């Protein structure tokens, strides 16, 4: 059991985080493991998934022990219709190489029409990304129902594979120089 000394918490209001040494240390360790390995570029993927279908599909993939690349992290929202395009842009700007949005299949939305809203928004967002010279194929929208654990795993694998081929996003490409 590790108990850090209860130091007074006083980081300035509005600043989200203090960048601790430990974070850096782990990250360095990770860098080394990656470099020691294949040295291949490992894309970082963020997924916004709806509570009712795709998150449940990810759970099912888990209980079924279907293996997929660990490059993805999930953010659970109640509905794919709640995905603000700003979230996607923020994720892309913040170092993620791809963003997956997962919702219920057409007609199956728990909230009647949220997935259609997501479809409209993401279509427009991809258009915008293309117009400002970014790669719109880094943003995926997929319908994965609660019973499709294997579909979820397959989608993640496919996306990671494709992003690996694309290399780092232009927004992160120069970070390591």
């Amino acid at each position, binding site marked *: 059991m590790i108990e*850090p000394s209860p130091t007074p918490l006083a980081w300035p209001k509005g600043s989200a985080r203090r960048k601790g040494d430990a974070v850096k240390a782990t990250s360095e360790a990770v860098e080394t493991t990656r470099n020691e390995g294949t040295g291949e570029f490992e894309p970082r993927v963020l997924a916004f998934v709806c509570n009712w279908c795709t998150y449940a599909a990810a759970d099912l993939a888990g*209980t079924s022990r279907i293996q997929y690349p660990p490059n993805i*992290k999930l953010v659970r929202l109640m509905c794919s219709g*709640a995905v603000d395009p700003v979230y996607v842009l923020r994720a892309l700007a913040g170092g993620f190489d791809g963003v997956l949005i997962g919702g219920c299949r057409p007609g199956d939305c728990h909230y009647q029409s949220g997935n259609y809203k997501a479809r409209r*928004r993401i279509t427009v967002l991809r258009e915008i990304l293309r117009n400002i010279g970014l790669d719109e194929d880094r943003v995926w929208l997929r319908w994965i129902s609660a019973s499709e654990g*294997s579909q979820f795993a397959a989608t993640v694998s496919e996306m990671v594979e494709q992003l690996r081929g694309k290399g780092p996003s232009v927004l992160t490409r120069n970070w390591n120089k």
Partner: protein
Amino acid sequence: MEPTETTNEEMKIRIKLDGVPVEVETGTTILTAASTAGITIPTLCYYRGLGSAGACRLCVVELKTDRGSRLVPACHHAIDEPAEVLTHSPRVVASRRMTIELLLARCPDVPALKDLAEEYGVATPRFAPDDDDCILCGLCVRTCRELMEIDALSMVGRGWNRRVAPPYDRKSLVCMSCGACAFVCPTGRIKISDIYSGLAEENLSTYDERLVPVGNIRLSYPQQIPKVPVIDRDNCVHFKTGACGACERVCTVGAIDYEQEDREEELNVGAVIVTPGFAHYDAKQKGALGFGRYANVMTNLQFERVLSASGPCGGEVRRPSDGSHPRKIAFLQCVGSRDTNEEGKPYCSSICCMASIKEAVIAREHDSNVEPTIFYIDIRTQGKEFERYFEDARDKHGITFRRSNVAKIYERPDTKNLVLKYVDEETEEITEEEFDLVVLAAGLVPHPSNEALSASLDLRLNEHGFCEGHTHQVPTSGAAGIFTGGGTTEPHDIPETVVEGSCAAAGAARLLADVRGTMSRKKKYPRQIDVAKQLPRIGAFICRCGINIAGTVNVPEVVAHAATLPGVIHSAEFVYSCSQDSLEIMKEKIKEHDLNRVIVASCTPRTHEYLFADTIREAGLNRYYFELASIREHCSWVHMQQPEQATLKAKELVEMMVNKIRGARPVSLEYSPVVHRGLVIGGGVSGMNAALSLAEQGFECDLVEKDMQLGGNYRRHWLPVSELYSDSYLDELEAAVRGNPKISVHLDSKVTFFSGVVGNFHAKIKCNATGEEEEVNCGSAVVATGGVERETTEYGYGTDERILTQLELEKRLADGTGSLEGVRNVVMIQCVGSREEPNLYCSRVCCTEAIRNALELKRADPDVNVYIIYRDIRTSGFREELYREARDSGVVFLRYTVEQKPVVEAGPDGVGIAVFDRISRREVRLTSDLIVLSVGIAPRPGNEELSRVLRVPVTRDGFFMEAHAKIRPVDFTSEGLHLAGLAHSPRFTSECVTQSLGASARAATVLSRDKIESKAEIVEVNLARCSGCALCVSSCPYEARRIDEETGKALVEDILCQGCGACAGICPNKATVQHLYRQTQIMHMLEPVGEAAAVVEEKTTS
């Protein structure tokens, strides 16, 4: 006390494990010590619960003591002196590589060895490869001896002749076929199927329809509640012989208790609902179809498991004999149903047509090479929206439908393909066709427990063994207060079953109305501490989940990482966070460190989120100061081969959740009081039953009828609609409604305005005659506005008085004025205006109605000729008996297709009718005295208007649309609104009554509450930011958002809001904020974490 402590200390030894000092008890093996410290040492011959053998030599480690360094097997070497242990030193790795190389040369095809070879970088062995698959680890032998205490197999031979074998190479007589040897075998040499083949009855999964074997400790099925495995006492070796007991030894939390006994409990109850369901027809009884003899003949339920993503094939379409992908699949309908042979059941099983069509479509979706053919007698897709599904299956999904009865199936011995022998409908010749797989639509039979229950509960069973009666009007038992429904009473589809469940609940609620809520207990929570102004003080608890998480993720590293995160005051790990003592520790730590936010990193939120949130509530925190990071389902279980990456991901997931919870705010739920009064729209049989049921459950209600009298369509029935309803049924029902002081009847009225929220609706009822409007409040409402007989001009209806509808015929049959005198020939035409565009649905009742009227005609005068011209006869369930009776009494059935409709021509001597009969394949010309049209049921024309008033949807066909076709058949998506009867879809009177009682039970779930609670994840508006653009209003599917006319700002109806967050996503000013998913929280989650954070930091600082 003292001596014990001294001994304890004496027994502890300090050793260094890979450079890390650890303290272990004397006698602990190195393997155990390492696994406690989270270090993995490869081994093939070690098994928890068994003694060690040191046979595979993979677990060798380097042991450095005062006497020098040597290699020892970690599983076998007990630590008895201070030492330094290196688990992955170059010497160790070299030794392991050699071992792996040798083993791999012996067994080149064993997956476990291949994986190890890859891990240790061993290429193709230098030695000549053998083709063995046994590494002689002896696990099986030791298991059999040590655990099962028998020696059903042992090591025989010496040197290179050494092998594992049972005595004399024959299956030992002492073998119990327990399968433990196969379970522990690391190479897959011993196969469970070989062992089970010796059993009289294989231990097969009943959930997976006997397609796969199961172990003796298991979950019955994945969705089991509670999700706790049980031991199969009938097969468990420990229960049979007292040996084994391995599970007790390996269970780290001591959950195994062999002493547990079944317990009898006595309960005093006011009502009993009996719903054991139904059983599946044993297709083996149909010997000619080969089920049980031919591997590739399966039942529809088995095929459903094959198609299921969680089934034995993971959703891939495979056949049992060789696991190959079948191309041609035959579905055989009515196996054991509609069958008057001794081994069959005479009734129709109702669900199989739709089930087979659905399976065929899904099979095609899973594998586009599949070519399904459905062999059927009649396609009975009489459910709501089923007809469209059937038509799409045939026209869009390429499924072949063949109206033929398969007489015999035989198997080709070489390919295990199946040859079906049937008479082709088109050519009328005996045809043989080969298929890869055959699926039998085995019917439904009464549940075996019906008989025992019938004895103990005095249930009435019908001749088939199903329970009789399902509404409280028709008691199911001689004893009062016993209700049943669903598959217990008749083969039913899911929506009917669900409705009957609600109906039974209504019956029970009616009896127990006076004592509702008197025995319920409320949990007490401490006063909530106000921490909103405090800085975040986060507790992070990381769960090992036994080895489920800790087996892959390095949990101590995650705990250490969590401790460094800003705001985290306390971080710790639990073996099982969800265990009672862990929850107590959690509460203590909250108090000890003044924690005001908690995250737990463990399983999916669906499992224990509520438990943890409730725990922090017990510690005085708002339960929404809790977040859960799923590091099991989304991490350890799906990245099992990449422990380092999984650990990194777990850290990042924890960090994201810490970032999220830092911005959490307490949520207090809004409550609104409930008006304990119902509103029923429509005063037919459905509406009256709903109102009466609500009143009997103790709620006042308003019943609104558009006509001058109650009764609706039922008034147009002149003959009893079924034996369930007596001639005076309607009068009695009306008297009961009229006489009930809780019901206010509004005749000649309609609902013109409806607003409000669940529990507190506001409606205006307008009287058509006076134009006066009455305002009423209600907590929930039931729509039972009924349907109408379809108007038609087809077949000359309206031009000749000899052409009439079934209801008109019924009137003439009943009036007794002799208006049918002289009528010798009657022709009935089915599906007039139904089952074709624009009314592509089945009206469900017309086949039965026509047959009833035909039988009535025959009863009055057996010499009358009655012809029924039909497309498919849809007398589902026990109504099949009417169909058989009609055929037996000489009613002639001719079949037409929609492409070749009958032609009617009125002449002076009778109405001429010409039809091409598909059965005899010839044109039949008849001259008839009467033509009776089965015109079916159309939606009421006022549905559209009412749907706008209530803001509820209607289907393409114009009926009201329920929330979910299967599991919420009498609810609208808007909470508090329900529907029943013909407003829902065409159905029989008895089904309307069931639905209305079911709807009343659903309405009562709202009315019986004191207050309605809003959802936690609803949105709120930051008024300072709102510009009143109303984008939120247009994005809300629930009418929960509106613009305040005074301020021009957006508002939220808390109770209506369902928390989808669509409006929060679209709000351009971010004035709309969703609780639990605040935009600031989500943005903080997206902050670079882990690796990226470090990179960003380097860039910003340099």
